[in-house]
């Protein structure tokens, strides 16, 4: 009899563990998640380690996301990884891709070559060279996509590398963060994550 009781107990424990685990998974993928972020790409907004974010999942697939929001998304070039970036361009916006992608030296070099061989080169080639210039490369964000960048532009792998990101990869929006490097006196470094987008005023 004892064995039978043990088996029943084991079965019920396993079954409740499964149900509880699945409930937590459902909660984490559809309602809310509290998770650690790593990496330097969001400095100084988020610390590079031990920083935990409060993430609302009702914003998944970019529902209701706006320019300036911080989102968690799957990396387009490696969907096993999740990245945390800020939306800096919505569908229809014209975005300057990356003014830092070409160094100033290169810019100069191009200029010199153009001047020296101006007679030999056709106007079309010169125009193509100008278009290639980093300061003059723009993209119109297509429908259903967003342009994302990290806050730490010099140390971030983002849309400047993998181009526009489909909204279907967005998993949620970050509304607040806790820096667990701090102690209880500051509520473990709790702060709201604000939309940093500033509208141009004239």
């Amino acid at each position, binding site marked *: 009899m004892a064995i039978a009781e043990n088996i029943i107990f084991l079965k019920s424990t396993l079954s409740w563990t499964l149900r509880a685990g699945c409930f937590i998974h459902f909660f984490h993928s559809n309602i809310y998640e509290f998770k650690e972020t790593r990496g330097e790409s969001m400095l100084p907004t988020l610390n590079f380690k031990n920083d935990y974010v409060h993430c609302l999942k009702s914003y998944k*697939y970019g529902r209701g996301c706006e320019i300036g929001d911080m989102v968690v998304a799957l990396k*387009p*070039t490696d*969907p*096993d990884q999740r990245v945390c970036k800020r939306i800096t361009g919505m569908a229809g916006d014209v975005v300057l891709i990356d003014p830092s992608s070409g160094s100033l030296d290169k810019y100069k070099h191009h200029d010199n070559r153009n001047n020296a061989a101006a007679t030999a080169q056709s106007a079309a080639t010169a125009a193509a060279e100008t278009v290639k210039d980093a300061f003059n490369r723009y993209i119109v964000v297509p429908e259903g996509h967003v342009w994302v960048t990290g806050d730490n532009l010099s140390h971030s792998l983002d849309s400047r590398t993998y181009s526009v990101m489909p*909204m279907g*990869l967005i998993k949620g929006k970050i509304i607040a963060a806790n820096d667990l490097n701090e102690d209880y006196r500051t509520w473990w470094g709790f702060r709201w994550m604000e939309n940093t987008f500033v509208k141009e005023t004239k």
Partner: protein
Amino acid sequence: MFSEKTVQTLRFTLKTSLIFLTWVPVIYTFNEHVCYISKVEGSSMKPTFNPSSTKSDFVLLWKWNLKPNLNINDVILLRSPINPEKIYAKRIKGLQGDKIQTRYPYPKQSVLIPRNHLWVEGDNIHSIDSNNFGPVSNGLVIGKACYIIFPFSRFGPIPDGGRECRESKLRNFNQDKESQVV
């Protein structure tokens, strides 16, 4: 107020429904990560799906261990890159690193598929596919359609369809044809 029997029935009903409710997340998780039966609408996968265009097909969608199992000519369901609320059924026509001969609306003649991206096309030529929106990320794939479940007349694995558009294979095909002619 209530008779003994009504109270008992009520209690039993309440208990059963609560127990059932605790299983809902399990069903959700299973449908989200293992397998799911999905309805396919629209004509983009004609004649593989919905050949009659009056009724919709139901397919068995496999989601477990998906990433290493995406091969050429598999039919997948993916979240549309144009509108994330829409789901497309398309056939994989190119994997990462393949060079693809594109079709009309695409601005370039051939395209190299980036890392962890796929080239997808509908079996019907009138379909909104990678020729419109380019290679899609693996992360948008929801599942792989393995079997047609309903209508029962076409029950079974999904037949092949579409065209070959990988440049490497096309070259082989052309060479074969040339050698046959000679």
